[in-house]
């Protein structure tokens, strides 16, 4: 496992502004909500109309539901158009979208240009390995079984990073605010244990 300690951890988990990022894995929606709680400004969640999963209003992190807008386009073309249009709008802080098909390089590049034009962050919740090479970062998000009743552990691994190093973090985020606890990962010990006494 490789972790860089140059920057504080909070900054490592912060998405670079004016770029489009990707998240995959089962717990990608939790990652998206974590990012939503950490950004300011209007939030737009673009999800195709036939997808049954919706954010549940009563459990969103505090301050998210007032800012959240949900667009439900009917087709993939409309979805990508809506993402591009929203990224271009200067009023929006974070655009979260769930494309159903793999993003082509052209589509990914267009979204990056739109994000730069509107100075907006984008986060694509992609299916596994359905991302585009134009993404700024790609996160693999999985839930980790907790050790206690109230521990909700997440493993967020940065598998692609255009402007920095990759890494993997296990942290405890309970979904109510943008605060989190870093959890030191258990590892196999190679050195000898100190003798007791």
């Amino acid at each position: 496992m490789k972790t860089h300690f140059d920057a504080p951890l909070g900054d490592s988990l912060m998405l670079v502004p004016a770029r489009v990022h990707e998240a995959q894995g089962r717990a990608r929606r939790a990652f998206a909500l974590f990012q939503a709680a950490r950004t300011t400004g209007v939030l737009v969640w673009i999800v195709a109309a036939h997808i049954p999963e919706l954010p549940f209003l009563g459990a969103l992190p505090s301050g998210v539901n007032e800012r959240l807008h949900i667009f439900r386009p009917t087709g993939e073309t409309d979805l990508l158009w809506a993402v591009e249009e929203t990224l271009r709008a200067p009023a929006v802080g974070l655009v979260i979208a769930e494309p159903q098909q793999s993003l082509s390089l052209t589509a990914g590049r267009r979204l990056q240009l739109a994000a730069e034009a509107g100075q907006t962050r984008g986060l694509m919740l992609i299916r596994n390995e359905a991302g585009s090479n134009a993404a700024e970062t790609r996160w693999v998000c999985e839930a980790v079984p907790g050790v206690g009743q109230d521990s909700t552990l997440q493993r967020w691994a940065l598998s692609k990073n255009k402007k920095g190093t990759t890494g993997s973090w296990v942290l405890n985020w309970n979904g109510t605010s943008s605060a989190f606890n870093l959890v030191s990962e258990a590892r196999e010990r190679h050195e000898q244990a100190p003798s007791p006494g």
Partner: protein
Amino acid sequence: MARRLLSIWFPKLASDTSRRRRPVEGAFALVLRAGNLDHLHCLNKEAEIRGLRQGMSLADARAICPELQTRPADLPSEKAALESLRRWASRYSPMIATEGVDGLVADISGVAHLFGGEEDLRADLDARLARADVTAVTAVAGTRGAAHALVRHGGGIVPEGKLAEGIGHLPVSALRIDHATADGLARVGLPLIANLIDLPRAPLSRRFGPGLVLRLDQALGVQPESVSAEPEPPHFGVRMTLPEPIGLQSDVMAGLARLLDRLCSKLALHHMGARRVQLELRRVDRATAKVEIGLARPMRDSTRIAALFAKGVDQVDAGFGIDCLRLSATLVEPMPPEQTGGGPALKADDALADLLSSVGNRLGFDRVLRMIPADSQIPEKSFQLVPAIYSAAEPAGPRRVAPRPITIFPPEMVLDTVGQRPGTPPARFRWRAMWFSTLRAQGPERITPEWWFDDPAWRSGMRDYWRVETQEGPRLWLFHTPQSPGWHVAGEFV
């Protein structure tokens, strides 16, 4: 110049309106319910010939005329019909107003010669109304009171300077006075207006009140009474007719920009903002193409509205060319003037409204949504997705003590369950083609369906919700329906 007043009375306005909408043969009446008694509100000529009268109770009318056809009276549509008749009748005079619920009064001073004199004007009006199958009585007189009195008693024309002779033969009840006064006058032997004209005013006023004298003097022209035309509601539509047909998109957009400037200044004048704007393009071959856009909030900024039309105009088939553009705001809302400039917050609001408008015009405004909390214990109904442009953000209520998932979806059946003891979640289960082992379970939280609302999804009865942590990682929201045993997954936690 002497004033001339035209009065029009529609004695069967309600039944004429109703019959125009849906023709009917034979005796027909509209029925209005007052208290708990149905009585005849308005009836047609056949019904009157059969001996029915207005105000008669429906039971009596049915006894007299068993084949009477009835419909419930519709007072708002009656009012709208009178209003449209008023607009039509403004062809005879600009000064026209409604009088009561079934009459019009117009000031036609200096207008009659345009129609060839008062007789011809009245004949023209009667002929047009008869062709439209609207029963009407018309009268022309030198005062409003006299015209009103005459129109209720057969109509006609009172020549200039002959007011007293013209209305003298009418009963006093024609003077717009109440029943008690009219009865009182008849009892003292003054049944006609002619009896009143020569009487001294002071004793009359002392005995019957100042109202009678006022009405009498108004009818005779001693007291002035004017007709005030009602203001027309503003119409937010502009159009442009072109000498040569155009076909280029840029030309249409240039024409649209000019129309929008005019429309927006009109909206600004009335402190209104457009919510829907429609552009009609009439082609040389008389076909019409329509482009309609919606706006996320009331707006009258021409450049921002024009940008939304670009896509719709692009798809219009110009054919041999377009020679008429018509732009109308089909839905307007009040929009008070705002201070220009504004702060950054106002600019962000504008930018967001622009985004919602452009996205809504392509996806449909029912797909641009916002979540607002709803008052229900049922998880699926504890929030609502509502169109963002017709709602404001609401803060969610206080966080519940019971755990709630961050994503929710319609319940999905758990296919195989292994190692289940009564009252606890299964030790192993299969969901979405994957096996999960229960590591920890928290619950149950029992939610019962709302008995006052039959929801098909909740026919299986009450549900026991569990938060189940799995060894594989996902923390799922399972529920068990004890009344029809089975396990379902309904959501996923953080």
